[in-house]
């Protein structure tokens, strides 16, 4: 039995047409930009990354145009996790809409709930009891710490370090278990309600929180010592993917990525919501705008979050945790935009009411979606491996990007 040998791709005598780097027929360009992207110059080729790639933090496909080892251009392909949440919310009532938004950002889902709840409360003119506001701040800051510690582990993992993510998960698990004791869920909490929160703080949550707070600062410092001064980590991130303040504003960047570029914009201070005006905290910024700065800003934010939690625990008043509201909510026709400062930037929800018990239109704005646009501009001219470093430092979560 003879088997015909297929020509090896390594054989220099074999001519490979440029479009053979596609495993499917090359797409027909639909736009000017796509036509530009699909045009290969001398020495360039396409490399496909994803959709299932550990560095894409979810299901993302990136088509990278490379020249040798250098990235010339890239084109992210989204939509693998698209569930049509906005459409589902239009067909659900106001309470149901909140739990649809939970799985958007599965690592910081309390923020995804907080934005629509804020918008709905504006639509309905609800006054949230002060204790509920404090509980929201407390749980959100805990969730922020969980998200940032996980970011730290992910970022190190994308740069080739295995250990930090194991350490990060220790911290995250503590917080997640704590929130599970409070909300009944480990990941998708569905805890905030229009007009308050679902259930007061319980004993198990408080005892876990107390134990964790007594050693949190020291534990997080030791986590930071693990990679902050690691030479490989610093050399691979310093000066990489520099984003200046002007470009950041033009690109609609918010959150830690913007603050790492030197713009001290934080909704908690600049457009205060809940009880943040009464709490004392700093807004950490950096001027470098590179991947290392984006990492360090987040690490500084963890410390500020611990500071906020400490104040919240001291100042939390007694009282009800839910406002008195009818079961069926029919807000007057109107429009409202609710926004919160999440671990990745501004989470916003733009809700339109037409007087029925379902939102007429519910727009969900997710910061990761905007930040993912930057991966292309920031990685041009760098090595392929640095794409992951830049993407990790921007910290997109695909659940939120794809909605």
């Amino acid at each position, binding site marked *: 039995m003879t088997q015909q040998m297929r020509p090896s791709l390594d054989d220099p005598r074999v001519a490979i047409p440029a479009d053979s780097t596609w495993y499917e027929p090359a797409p027909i360009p639909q736009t000017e930009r796509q036509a530009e992207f699909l045009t290969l110059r001398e020495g360039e080729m396409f490399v496909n990354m994803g959709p299932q790639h550990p560095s894409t933090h979810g299901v993302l496909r990136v088509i990278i145009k490379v020249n040798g080892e250098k990235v010339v251009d890239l084109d992210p392909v989204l939509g693998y996790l698209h569930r049509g949440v906005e459409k589902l919310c239009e067909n659900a009532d106001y309470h149901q809409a909140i739990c649809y938004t939970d799985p958007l950002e599965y690592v910081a889902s309390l923020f995804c709930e907080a934005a629509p709840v804020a918008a709905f409360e504006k639509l309905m003119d609800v006054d949230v009891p002060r204790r509920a506001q404090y509980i929201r701040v407390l749980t959100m800051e805990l969730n922020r710490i969980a998200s940032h510690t996980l970011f730290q582990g992910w970022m190190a993992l994308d740069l080739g370090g295995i250990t930090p993510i194991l350490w990060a998960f220790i911290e995250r698990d503590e917080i997640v278990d704590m929130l599970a004791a409070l909300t009944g869920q480990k990941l998708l909490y569905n805890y905030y309600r229009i007009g308050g929160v679902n259930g007061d703080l319980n004993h198990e949550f408080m005892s876990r929180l107390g134990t964790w707070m007594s050693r949190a600062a020291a534990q997080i410092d030791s986590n930071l010592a693990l990679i902050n001064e690691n030479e490989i980590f610093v050399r691979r991130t310093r000066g990489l993917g520099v984003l200046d303040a002007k470009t950041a504003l033009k690109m*609609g960047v918010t959150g830690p990525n913007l603050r790492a570029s030197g713009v001290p914009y934080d909704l908690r201070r600049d457009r205060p919501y809940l009880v943040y005006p009464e709490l004392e905290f700093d807004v950490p910024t950096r001027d470098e705008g590179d991947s290392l700065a984006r990492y360090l800003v987040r690490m500084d934010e963890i410390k500020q979050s611990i500071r906020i939690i400490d104040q919240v625990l001291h100042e939390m008043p007694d009282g009800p945790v839910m406002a008195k509201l009818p079961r069926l909510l029919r807000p007057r026709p109107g429009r409202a935009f609710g926004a919160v400062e999440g671990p990745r930037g501004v989470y916003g929800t733009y809700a339109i009411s037409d007087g029925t018990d379902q939102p007429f239109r519910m727009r969900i704005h997710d910061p990761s979606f905007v930040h993912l*646009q930057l991966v292309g501009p920031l990685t041009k001219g760098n090595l392929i491996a640095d794409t992951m470093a830049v993407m990790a430092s921007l910290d997109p979560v695909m659940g939120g990007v794809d909605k």
Partner: protein
Amino acid sequence: MDRRLAALLTEKFGERLLTPVRQRYDESEIRVALANATDTLRTLHDDPALRFEMLIDLCGVDTGEEMQVVYHLSSSTSGDWLRVIVPGLDRTAPRIASATFMWPGAEWMEREAYDMFGIIFEGNRDLRRIYMPDDYRSFPLRKDFYLADDASRSPAAGVRNMERAGTPADATAATVLRKSPGV
């Protein structure tokens, strides 16, 4: 609520505003006609007294009768967020000028609005589908797009003939749109 901002906006734009400035909580809202949209955004961005330099969000809205494009802007001089509503886009062929000349970051948000509503943003260099596959024909967030559960109510009518998957034989009533002309 920033009263000063309302006065300033009324003074700057005058009769260009379709309705008086509305304010509620920490949001101000203005409506401008399609023809003035680009100029208004440029003034809001460049004017030293306004300086709305951050585009927080851009989205499309289908009211069932017309399309709207809504911008949310944030300023470094005012505590309020500004919502700019551009109403009156034709539902059958919605077109508006792109905001990418000023905020390149609007590119993907406009792609999303195109993908979900079919709004054409003139001047966007990369206006193609972003979530749905390239060969998808419908615009899912339009009010005449029914979810699978609601399909029995729908005579399968899309917006354009291309989208018409075929009218089922037992379809009797015309599509009942959930319309909200008031919002």
